[in-house]
């Protein structure tokens, strides 16, 4: 999806699954591009920690459902664009083997005002955690183990089920 249309207004969106490391600065630059009405950019970077629940890990292996993951992310980017006045949105998710310190996921949102950019980035992350078909397996000295889904992530995603509060007026 390169430009979901919401109310006739095209919002540039970048959605990509890749094994390669994410060139964060370059990706964000592409997102903001030549638009002159961007006042706020929020980025979220998910990074592979060196331990999981106190156990040192060698790597994460990220399995995904290729045909579904991109479509599922695209649906949520469209929903974010319908909920908030975004100028751009970006989701890049890696798969395969990822070592501690490496980036796993990048979400970036651009808007004229900061509240929309913050809310949309949180919304996208909460949905990625609970709805995007990715599964993490931890490699450690004990062998390989699948990461358990966390109920706190479901709780975080559920708060978006209520209708969004009315937009506050312009505060960048």
């Amino acid at each position, binding site marked *: 999806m390169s430009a979901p249309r919401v109310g006739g207004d095209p919002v540039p969106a970048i959605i990509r699954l890749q094994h390669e490391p994410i060139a964060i600065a370059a990706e964000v630059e592409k997102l903001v591009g030549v638009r002159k009405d961007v006042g706020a950019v929020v980025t979220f970077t998910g990074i592979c920690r060196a331990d999981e629940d106190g156990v040192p890990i060698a790597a994460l292996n990220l*399995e*995904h*459902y290729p045909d*579904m*993951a991109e479509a599922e992310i695209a649906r949520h980017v469209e929903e974010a664009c319908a909920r908030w006045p975004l100028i751009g949105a970006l989701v890049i998710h890696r798969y395969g083997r990822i070592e501690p310190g490496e980036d796993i996921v990048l979400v970036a949102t651009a808007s004229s005002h900061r509240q929309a950019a913050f809310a949309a980035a949180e919304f996208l*992350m909460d949905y*990625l955690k609970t*709805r995007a078909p990715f599964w993490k*397996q931890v490699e450690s000295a004990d062998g390989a183990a*699948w990461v358990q889904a966390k109920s706190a992530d479901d709780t975080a995603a559920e708060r978006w089920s209520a209708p969004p509060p009315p937009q506050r007026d312009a505060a960048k």
Partner: protein
Amino acid sequence: MTTGPAGQTTKIKLRYFAWVRERVGKAEEEIEAPADIATIAELMAWLSGRGEQYAYAFENPKVIRAAIDRNHVRAEARIEGAGEIAFFPPMTGG
């Protein structure tokens, strides 16, 4: 999903991910299921009876998520007309 010659079985393309894939022992397969299996829940119950590995994979069907043609569905979803059905654990992306 296509109905078999005598109307008694249907061909279904299945995909498995993460530990469901590991327990079943394969990433995808095409199966012939009885034509009277109508929902995801019924399909999981039927798969459980196909052998030890399936019984292990589907031992706790409440934790298994499913997708029909790349859309999340609930256990009570009807499978008629499905092109591809996937089973997997709760997602842990992001």
